[in-house]
């Protein structure tokens, strides 16, 4: 379809973009990759008066890898995250997850910042961010603030971002050597989004789990951390019984979504099945 008329500004600085947002918080929308926003404009589900294109803002770009951690600019596309060798050497989770997002056309345009800011309950990056214990850097009128990914998502399509804030970067602590990662996703047959997606970072020392973080998407109103399941695994072997118990704990961690396609029971079941399969894949 055809969007309603709107004004368009290509921002030349972060400050300018924030000022424009502050001027008219309800009528202004940031435009990153556009692969969520433009379809909703075309369907006239949204009709903002002004689009602020942040595509030129250098501060929001690039992948930096340092001794302490990894910094990813909000505008980094899914395709770039898929392709970056240095990134995937450290965190192969990026390639695994990016490869399961939509198709090459969408991956070439869609950005990680747009995905996180949009907080689709079935999007992939939120689970990955949780498993990697990422921290999100937000630019606002009074400078930058940071927040842990696990505190970032509030509800369906809702985050802690204020109307005049911009998601600027993602900081990920460098993983302990030997940490292993897996992302598993059951796709909705039409949308390709996650019916359930599970991201895991896990480290074993002498066959005992020494570190574990689990992020789950698709199952609930927003992505969540599987804290009980991860805590349970610490200090244990990945035996069949332990895996089963962790899977049970994970599926009990949330009230699952129910929709026309999949019931809450089905989602709860997928959480268990997928966690078990993920952990089996990580078992040496």
């Amino acid at each position: 379809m055809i969007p309603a008329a709107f004004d368009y500004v290509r921002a030349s600085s972060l400050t300018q973009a924030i000022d424009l947002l502050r001027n008219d918080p309800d009528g202004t929308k940031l435009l990153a990759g556009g692969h969520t926003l433009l379809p909703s404009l075309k369907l006239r589900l949204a009709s903002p008066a002004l689009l602020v294109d942040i595509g030129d803002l250098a501060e929001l770009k690039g992948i930096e890898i340092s001794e302490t951690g990894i910094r990813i600019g909000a505008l980094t596309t899914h395709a770039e995250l898929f392709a970056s060798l240095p990134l995937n050497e450290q965190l192969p989770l990026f390639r695994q997850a990016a490869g399961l997002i939509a198709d090459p056309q969408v991956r070439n345009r869609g950005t990680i910042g747009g995905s996180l800011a949009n907080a689709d309950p079935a999007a992939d990056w939120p689970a990955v961010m949780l498993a990697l214990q990422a921290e999100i850097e937000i630019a606002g009128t009074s400078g930058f603030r940071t927040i842990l990914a696990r505190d970032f998502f509030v509800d369906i399509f809702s985050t802690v971002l204020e109307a005049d804030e911009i998601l600027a970067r993602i900081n990920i602590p460098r993983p302990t050597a030997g940490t292993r990662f897996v992302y598993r996703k059951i796709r909705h047959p039409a949308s390709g989004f996650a019916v359930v997606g599970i991201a895991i970072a896990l480290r074993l020392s002498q066959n005992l789990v020494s570190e574990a973080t689990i992020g789950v998407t698709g199952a609930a109103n927003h992505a969540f951390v599987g804290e009980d399941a991860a805590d349970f695994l610490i200090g244990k072997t990945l035996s069949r019984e332990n895996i089963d118990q962790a899977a049970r704990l994970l599926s009990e961690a949330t009230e699952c979504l129910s929709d026309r396609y999949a019931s809450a029971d089905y989602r709860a079941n997928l959480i268990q099945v997928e966690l078990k399969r993920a952990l089996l894949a990580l078992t040496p």
Partner: protein
Amino acid sequence: MSQAPAIRQIGQPLRRREDFKLLAGKGRYVDDIKLPGMLHMAVLRSPHAHARIGRVDLSAARSAPGVRLALSGQALDGKIGPIRPNWIIPGSKVPSRPVIAIDRVRFVGECVALVVAETLAEAYDAVGLIDVDYEVLPAVTDEEVAVRDGAPQLHDNVPGNITTIYKVRGGDYQKVSREADHVIGLRVVNNRLIPTCMETRAIVAAPELDGTLTVYIGSQVPHMHRRWIAETVGIPEHQLRVVAPDIGGGFGAKMHLYSEDLLCPYLARELGAPVKWWESRSESHQSTSHGRAHTERIEVAFTNEGKILGLKVETLGNVGAYLSNMASGGPTVNTVNFGTGTYKIDNYEAISRVVVTNTVPVDAYRGYGRPEGAYIAERAIDAVARHLKLDQVEVRRKNFVQPAEFPYRPYGSMGVMYDSGNYQGLLDKALAAFDYDRRRSECEALRGSGIYRGIGVAAYTHMCGMAPSRRLAVSGFDRGGWESARVSIDSSGRATIYSGSMSQGQGHITSLSQIAADVLQIPIENIEVVQGDTRQVQAGHGTFNSRSMAVGGSSVHVSSQRIVAKAKKIAASMLEVDEKDVSYSAGAFSVPGTDIPPVTFSKVARMAYVGHKLPDRLEPGLDETVFYDPTGMGSPSGVHLAYVEVDPETGIVDILDYVAVDDVGTLINPRLAAGQIHGGVVQGIAQALYEEVSYDADNGQLLTGSLLDYAVPRAEHVPNIRSLFQETPSPTNPIGVKGIGESGSIAAPPCMVHAVLDAVSPFGITHLDMPLTPPRIWAAVQEARKGAGQ
């Protein structure tokens, strides 16, 4: 000129001649047509499934920028319309369908008002300004609910929401059901589908300086559209030119008459300017006809040995809010007539009710009724095998119609005749290609280790190319069964074929050329094919019902023969011999047994036009038009096998193999034939595993309004399809072809369902309804485990 072909062209796997243009992005679709001064129409659609329309306030829309015209249904009342069906089963109650709703809307998506503006954006903006008062009425979307007492009623002249009751009967079902060892019943749902074309509908109507009107429309049936638009809008048919340019898929959905097809021509004449309408994808989901939407209750009576004695069927065919173009024929003639499938079932009793509901009208979609009919026969016989714990293949073998029984009239039917076939041959070929026995034991062996694999079998037959014309009157089909072809030879001996068939991706340019090349004995590259322009093509019915090769191809064959016959007369005159002494081969006319030098086809063609040496009383020119009316219909058949693995923990189905063996008579082009099977099978797998239109039962809202919720399979969702053929030529036409386009979508749904049912049979599951989505399969496994106390 290039040499005449040494080999027969029919049977050659030629590459499609039409593809280069399309692959190079040079296709010309309706939306590519941009005319000077062209205006754009946008339609306001009903947000309610059922409501009375109060005031329609167009004032804001009328004064919006760029708007030329805004109107509601009232303004058109009595001017154009109503939209009448083209196939009306005798005795049907036909609800009146206005072009734009006047006082009542009956489905979400029905046209309520429209705007014509200078740009598409302005038209969309203005539509948003139209204000309509609705009084919402109770809605009904499900066919079983719609026929109950007290259900909301859609039309005053359709009491009980039933437009048509159609009965078929042969033998004595009641008697055999009393005598049979077993009688079992099942209820199957044939899920409602959206015929998803890559190209949605679009139309441009352009008034010409000479007072005529040209309509560009993605139509499978350009001449039919010319007649319907002429009759419904009130334009003399000879002043209307319908042009169908390249089409991005039709599948049946582009052979009906829609409101927009009438509005653009009407508005173009009113405004004196070209008017374009283009359908967005979400609009398409709620305004282009849907497919299937049946519920069937089946009863089957059989012996301990698995021989079926009788079959009883009750069909409820949901046709949506009005009787669309062919709607009363689908659930009736096209479905229950074919309910016995490939099996010899002498005692048959079927009743079909055509039901209106507050949903998008349902009409032809690839197979139209035959997939539903085959599903009846196939689900029934599979249930028999399961009930008796007999092998699914052996039960079929036992019940198949035998090769010696053709031509075969199932259950003594007057209307149905299967012209030819060899189902045993198909089955044997399929089993061998599939390596059935090995796979069967593999399935059993793996079950022990918790791997659930299954094999599905399905056989089908049907009839293609509704004909002959005189027989169509009985069923109320308001068109003929013929197809026309003109073969026009130019003075150099090259040919242009004007065909009334209409390709929507099938590759007619290639296949019709092959048919003509064999008769004319000229190279393929000396043949052009013209379709889809009523100014150029003399007449036609178009492409549907897998009819184009059987009927359209035959007419090309016959007119080519007439060309050769006339050319032979001219050649005889040139050679100064008697016509009967002339023989035509390899593109040259010669006099066998003499040393008279032969004369080539191109020399004869030139003579036909200069006319210097023609036989007495022979008209000049080499140009023949044929209206070919077949004597009967060809019956393709096939046996398909699928191999699947079901993950009981997630319900996900993995298709490991798919073998299709089809008998479509003579193969004109095996490559294109395999392509037709592939496409049909993909759409059949889509119905079985993925696609389903959902409505909110309470308020009639369409829940699968976009491709975000309506799951059209992607490449990763479908297997490698192995397509093989058996050729039993049809005796009903001169080239021996049957239909092919619909085969895959008929065979694949039952085949896939049977494969999944076989895979989950260890859980005791005996029934599942399409689409077999992972959550649905998982839930059935859970239920079964609970029942078994596991």
